[in-house]
């Protein structure tokens, strides 16, 4: 019984930690239906056409693409393992491995919404349908609440530590401060990376 209580307590702490780092980004605002869009294939070819916009959650699972929206025969359905990513109007989705805030190990491929494109680090929002925030530098494995759970500072230093100013902040400041300012630090890192280019 004690073990069960400990397990439940641990899980509650885990979930509350994961949710504590959630931030609210502006949700995609596009009507359900077909809109102009593109798909980027695994060999990095960009195909122009039209993409069906379903909802935040469904858009993560598949991409329905048409070369001619008047002709249903031109429809192709892609899974996250088929594409690098896709766009619907100004919305960008990228295929990355992610299994949620409390997942472990390498996640399944998902189309995840690019909430804030950056020069070096993109900020993503994954919908459960609640928002979960994650970051990806280049093509490295994404950083999320679950990856930061046990190695918070080390993970942050891996993500942002190239910039010595930010590395100093990460080393000096506490977890609460860093969590609250993560978005600003990512912006600062992107500016630094762009200037360094």
């Amino acid at each position, binding site marked *: 019984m004690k073990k069960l209580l400990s397990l439940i307590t641990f899980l509650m702490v885990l979930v509350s930690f994961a949710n504590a780092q959630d931030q609210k980004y502006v949700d995609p*605002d596009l*009507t359900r239906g*077909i*809109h102009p869009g593109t798909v980027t294939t695994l060999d990095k070819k960009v195909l122009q056409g039209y993409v069906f916009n379903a909802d935040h959650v469904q858009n993560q699972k598949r991409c329905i693409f048409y070369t001619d929206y008047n002709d249903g025969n031109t429809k192709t359905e892609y899974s996250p393992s088929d594409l690098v990513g896709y766009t619907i109007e*100004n919305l960008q989705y990228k295929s990355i491995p992610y299994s949620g805030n409390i997942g472990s190990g390498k996640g399944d491929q998902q189309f995840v919404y690019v909430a804030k494109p950056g020069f070096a680090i993109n900020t993503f929002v994954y919908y459960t349908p609640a928002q979960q925030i994650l970051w990806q530098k280049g093509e490295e494995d994404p950083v999320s609440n679950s990856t930061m759970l046990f190695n918070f500072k080390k993970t942050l230093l891996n993500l942002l530590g190239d910039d010595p100013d930010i590395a100093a902040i990460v080393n000096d400041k506490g977890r609460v401060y860093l969590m609250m300012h993560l978005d600003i630090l990512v912006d600062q890192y992107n*500016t630094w990376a762009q200037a360094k280019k």
Partner: protein
Amino acid sequence: MKYFLFSPALLMGLSAFAQVQVVQGNNSSQFSVSKHAEFSSFTTDKANYFVLKRTEHFEKINTLIVADKSGSVVTNKEIRVDMGSFNNQSGVKDLLVINSTPVVFVENRDKGAGKNVLTAGTIDGNGSINTALITIGSMDFVKMSNAGEWYAALTPDQKHVAVIGKSPYEKGSATQFSYFMLDEKLQVTSKGIFTFAGNDKNIYVTNFLASDKGDLYIIADDFDKSYKYPTLYKYTIGGTGVIVPVVITDPKLKNLNYIARLSPQGDLVFAGYIQKKSTFSAGDPAAIGTWMFNSSKTNEVKTFNFDKPITNATARNLIYNGDIWFLVGEQYKADKVEMTASGPAAANFDETYNYTHGDIIVTGFTADGGSKKFDLSLDRQWTAKDFDQDLTVASGTINNKLVVVFNDQYGKYIDDRYHKFLKLPVAVLISNAGVADSPVIFANELDVKVSSYTLYPQFFNNDSGHLMVLSGNSQSIKTVTFQ
């Protein structure tokens, strides 16, 4: 007046010979266009600049949008400064693009020092203001509410800026102006003060322009009973100030509204609409013709009649293509919606308007403004509530022809009962003789049936052969270039 009514059949038949093509730029990062925005634009060899101005809670906010020549939006940023405190206020006065460098002019009113100081700072590619602001000039004042005003104007060569400061007004004394001419590096190359002899009233400046020759044109609106007319206050550097009331000679005719532009010779040209003077008026005001004035001929305001009156004619643009002047206007009405809130609560609500946008009106004048070449009207009808940036008209020149770009009703051109009220971007080319080509429609190119983007013809930018117009949805903007 030659009335040009669109015939869908004619359009379908002739659009195959369309001379206007369209290119879309990439989507911007997150951005939404604010309603009730004022607008100015700049074009250089490197980029096109759009400046949207709005006021929120007494703060003047300029939004700078920069698009490269491929149409990609490379910067979209609100240019704001710390407003300071009640007795030490700062604010953005203007944003100009000087030789491809955006520059913001910032005013600071410091009650303690009794100084109103204008500074300028360059804006970098990320939309950040250079913190090393350059002081341009200062004025003494006693009251914060009467601290003088600053105005800045870019010269047509885009390499100089004229800045004028209107001193705090003292009743019974002439309004005094100081001027500062700046070079590309924002260094003051000449400065001085001037007044206008015979004037002892406050000059309420509505517009300020400067020529390459050192002519400073200050426009203020004056009133003849309820009728408004412009007065031009011209000062030539090294000369004396001249006051020119731009009044229509015929006492039965009055200005309805107007627009002013610099001519290639550096003179100031006004063109607008005239109305009949009446002791009693009911209904919407009707324009019975146009008027034109060139500052090189100070005693001559030319008037020209329409074939029939046009209600709510509003001047939008005045364009010279090297041969003739085109006055572009539209039938436009904005009715303010009565606010239900009252007292302090009313301050928290934006003003709301019902808009009506009717026919587009184009008038051609000879280069000297001495005679009218043509009038024509393009049939159109829209109504909207509170947001009408998509319903006005963009204009410019392509291949030496005037081009007007606007949203028209899809159903006028394409037989589709389900989409008849969609906004369909349309371009019409108009020759110097006043001949309008068949409208070119962009239903397929812009994916009108499935795109979430709407063209905003209020925000446009014209360079040689290209008319770049912003389009947007609720979260992003992009450019659409007509060429």
